[in-house]
């Protein structure tokens, strides 16, 4: 193993130290809890035509926050993001097509 490779490893390892502080993680958790409370409120309060879009937006917001901050994808190497989001995109594409085949979205 040469010095250049060792330096690359060091750089990759150093990326870990760009993570947030514990207080930052607690702030993210509080925001997630607040969004969850809002989600639950849609079950009791009539949001009319905004019901479905607001639930979807809140679900995606929570998902992205956990993946970006708690799973550190925002701070880690982009290769990890590529691996995960490729699997996610493939799953979304395959199953949206599958559901469309069964005319799920026309119901």
């Amino acid at each position, binding site marked *: 193993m040469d010095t250049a*490779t*060792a330096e690359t490893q060091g750089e990759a390892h150093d990326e870990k130290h760009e993570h947030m502080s514990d207080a930052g993680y607690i702030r993210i958790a509080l925001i997630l809890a607040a969004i969850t409370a809002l989600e639950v409120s849609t079950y009791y309060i009539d949001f009319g035509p905004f019901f479905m879009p607001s639930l979807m937006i809140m*679900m995606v917001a929570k998902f992205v926050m*956990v993946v970006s901050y708690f799973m550190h994808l925002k701070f880690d190497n982009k290769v990890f993001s590529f691996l995960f989001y490729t699997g996610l995109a493939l799953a979304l594409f395959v199953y949206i097509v599958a559901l469309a085949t069964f005319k799920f979205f026309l119901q």
Partner: protein
Amino acid sequence: MADTMHAAAHAADHGHHSATGLSNNKLAMWLFLGSECLLFGGLISTYMLYRGRVSDGPHPSQVYDIPFTSVSSFVLLMSSLTMVLAVTSAQRNDDSKTNLWLTVTALLGATFIGGQVYEFTTFYREGMGFTTSLFTSSFYTLTGFHGVHVSVGVILLLATVGIIKRNKVTGNKAESVELVGLYWHFVDIVWIVIFTLVYLIPA
């Protein structure tokens, strides 16, 4: 020579790395989680397709206990916070705090599983068996698979606590905790999707 020895010591300290300089273990874990998206995508799609197919037994809106499931969701969400605190403690080489947060995470996970067992028992008593309808089969398969993942996560967390306590961690300790954390956060994000699509959106 000195450079080679330094690099070898660095590699031993931080685990095996690929030619990109990234950890092979983390690459494998992210690839695994990407493939898990396909598994849960299939289960969620099947549920979405069959949730209105209630030939016999209760309708989803008749059995779901939203306040109860909301509390379970909150518990699992907070376990993600304790997990990330365990990871940061491990990165600071603070073994006692790492073990504390890992144990708290395992307890929160076990609480979630306890809630799921209670929910399944209640549903069964209300006439919602596994083969009652297409809705019940797809519901139990989806939430059951997620429950198994959480249970495996709890076992991983407790095993990690035991390994750290006995000082038997081979390679990079912080990375080992981080890998368990990635798995744990994944089961949390799957539940974020299940909670919205299964429980909050009426069939």
